[in-house]
């Protein structure tokens, strides 16, 4: 297949700069039938990665909300909920050095993730400072083993304000299979969280 060279672009390219890049399906017969082009798999209502594989749960601590993305295989991502006040205050820094221990030193070995720190729901996973001068102790939200932290947040805390859902995760945790039902029951569901937000808004309104 020819590579695209600016000098040899057909004249039509001036009218439509994408012209050289349009997809052309190549025909192939397998099992006696023409293979369907991959573009047939387009689905307008295709759910996002989070919607495909995760369930959203929420955890409240100190008036701030946190989001737990619960994968169907029970892996959990701990994130800020969209309503977290840090977003409006402006993110200044993220640290995994929570005082007595540095969570970024967490090391896991093997399939069973041996050696991962065991965290309780209220255990501090990371510290988040805002431009407003507040420090938020990010809770672990669930009881489980720490598998991984997101060190990219330490280097570039501002990314929290611009990345897509999930990419601002603070930690990846693996709960025990037996604890999963209890953990889910202890967290707020999306509906409960939405309800909470609605009530909070109306409270703000009534106050003013």
């Amino acid at each position, binding site marked *: 297949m020819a590579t695209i060279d600016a000098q040899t672009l057909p004249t039509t390219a001036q009218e439509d700069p994408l012209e050289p890049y349009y997809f052309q399906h190549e025909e192939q017969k397998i099992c006696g039938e023409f293979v369907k082009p991959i573009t047939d798999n*387009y689905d307008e209502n295709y759910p996002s990665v989070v919607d495909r594989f995760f369930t959203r749960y929420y955890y409240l601590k100190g008036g701030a909300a946190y989001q737990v993305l619960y994968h169907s295989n029970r*892996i959990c991502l701990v994130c800020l909920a969209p309503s977290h006040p840090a977003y409006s205050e402006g993110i200044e820094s993220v640290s995994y050095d929570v005082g007595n221990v540095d969570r970024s030193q967490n090391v896991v070995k093997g399939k069973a993730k041996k050696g991962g720190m065991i965290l309780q729901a209220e255990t501090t996973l990371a510290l988040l400072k805002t431009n407003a001068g507040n420090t938020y102790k990010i809770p672990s939200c669930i009881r489980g083993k720490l598998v991984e932290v997101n060190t990219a947040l330490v280097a570039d805390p501002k990314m929290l304000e611009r990345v897509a859902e999930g990419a601002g995760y603070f930690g990846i945790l693996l709960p025990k299979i037996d604890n999963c039902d209890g953990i889910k029951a202890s967290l707020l569901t999306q509906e409960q969280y939405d309800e909470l937000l609605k009530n909070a808004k109306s409270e703000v309104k009534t106050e003013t």
Partner: protein
Amino acid sequence: MKNQELIDYLESCGVCRVCQLRYLKARGTEYRDMQKTFQRLDVKVPADGIKDEPADEQPTKKPRLDICSTCLGLFSEDFQQQLIDGILHSDFAKYDSAGIVLAFSLPMALQLRQLSMWFALQRKFGAAVDNNFAPDVPIKEAVKLILHPIVCTQLNKEYDANGLMINIELRHSTEQADVAKLVELNKAAFPAKAAHQKRIEISRGLLEKQYQPARLKAELFEKFLPIPPAPVTDPLELQSIDLLGPLVCVAGRYRKLSRELSHTPWVLDGKRIMEDSIEEIIIRNVGGHFSETPEKITFMSSGREDVDVRCLGKGRPFVLEIQNARCGSLTQAQALAMEQAVDATGTVSIHNLQVVPREELTHIKTGEEQKRKYYRALCVLEQPATLDILQKLQISESFDIQQKTPIRVLHRRPLHTRPRTIFEVKARVQRENPRLLVIDVVSQAGTYIKELVHGEFGRTAPSIASIIGQPIDILALDVVGIDLDWPADVNNAAAVE
């Protein structure tokens, strides 16, 4: 020690002609025309030879018995006939293998008799008989030199160490009594060094290693077993004949059209998640020709794709490893019929189906990480594609990515960050829907392509998403090529026309 003296002595001990030749250290073809070999070695034997020597001719000697005291009749014509009849009465005809190999399980009495004769010859001929090296061609070897060619000729087969294995178990009436004596002998000859030390089990291997004149005194041996070996009245008997077909490898390439078909049976908590699998479809249509036990066939392929990924282009190389195969050949017409039967499923297609030598399996097993894989991904942007995005996704120089174990498998695999090389990226946009990109990726084997596209929350970096600086998701994935030129192209359809 002259050859003639040796043969005369062996003769007097009731040793058959074949075994006499063994003690003359005859090789390969020398067993075919025995008279000639004796002549060449300047040994005189009665012309009528092997059987029924009238006892009254040589009244001074022990009466000669029909059964050789060293091979217990293993090399007699009677036994050969019995053996061939036995094989023909087994399932032998079910196997089409052109090559056969005989595997004998011999009674230990044979080894004991060999040792006894060794002692006897040392007494008779003194230092001419070595302490460490047996005076005869070992029975196991002689079986190969003598019985193998005869059986192969009679059955019209070739000798092939990887062919149909005929396991022959022999028994002898004296075995139990002899082994009982051997156990006693072993206690006396090789006592356990300490009380707690477990006594070594008597085995053929132990006999071969320990039981030599260099390690065992004849006097001690004689307390338990006679020197030279005692005459016998019963010949060896066939205990059983078991057939084990050769390992046959059948290779080909498969393609997969369905996005709802797993590679191998997918079972969770004892329940099937998917009704069928590529492995089962192929074995179902190919296995029966080669084997009566398709459940023992092993399916291997050069990597695998996810359930929802199609495999197109030339397809993915695979091999079936068939144990105990009845049939080792496949005509192109038969291969074509199998290919057509698989094609009829509409979900899996196979071609280039052929029997391959087992040594070639290394192609599929090794170098897995080095192979290049060609993919086509259907991706969706949040906004219509721009020229800038398309230009950023025309990458012809290879680059390395760091990929963490994807979350989707992280619960059952260790967390690692793996470096992977992406050799080429080429994106196209769909005219009717410019949010849709079709991205062709050439990558090192073992790259998780779905994660390469969306970056999985930054856990794969760089990713297609990080290269264009905006979110992108993957809707569908096809494997379009696997960089392995094996097995060879064979057009079964063209050959049959």
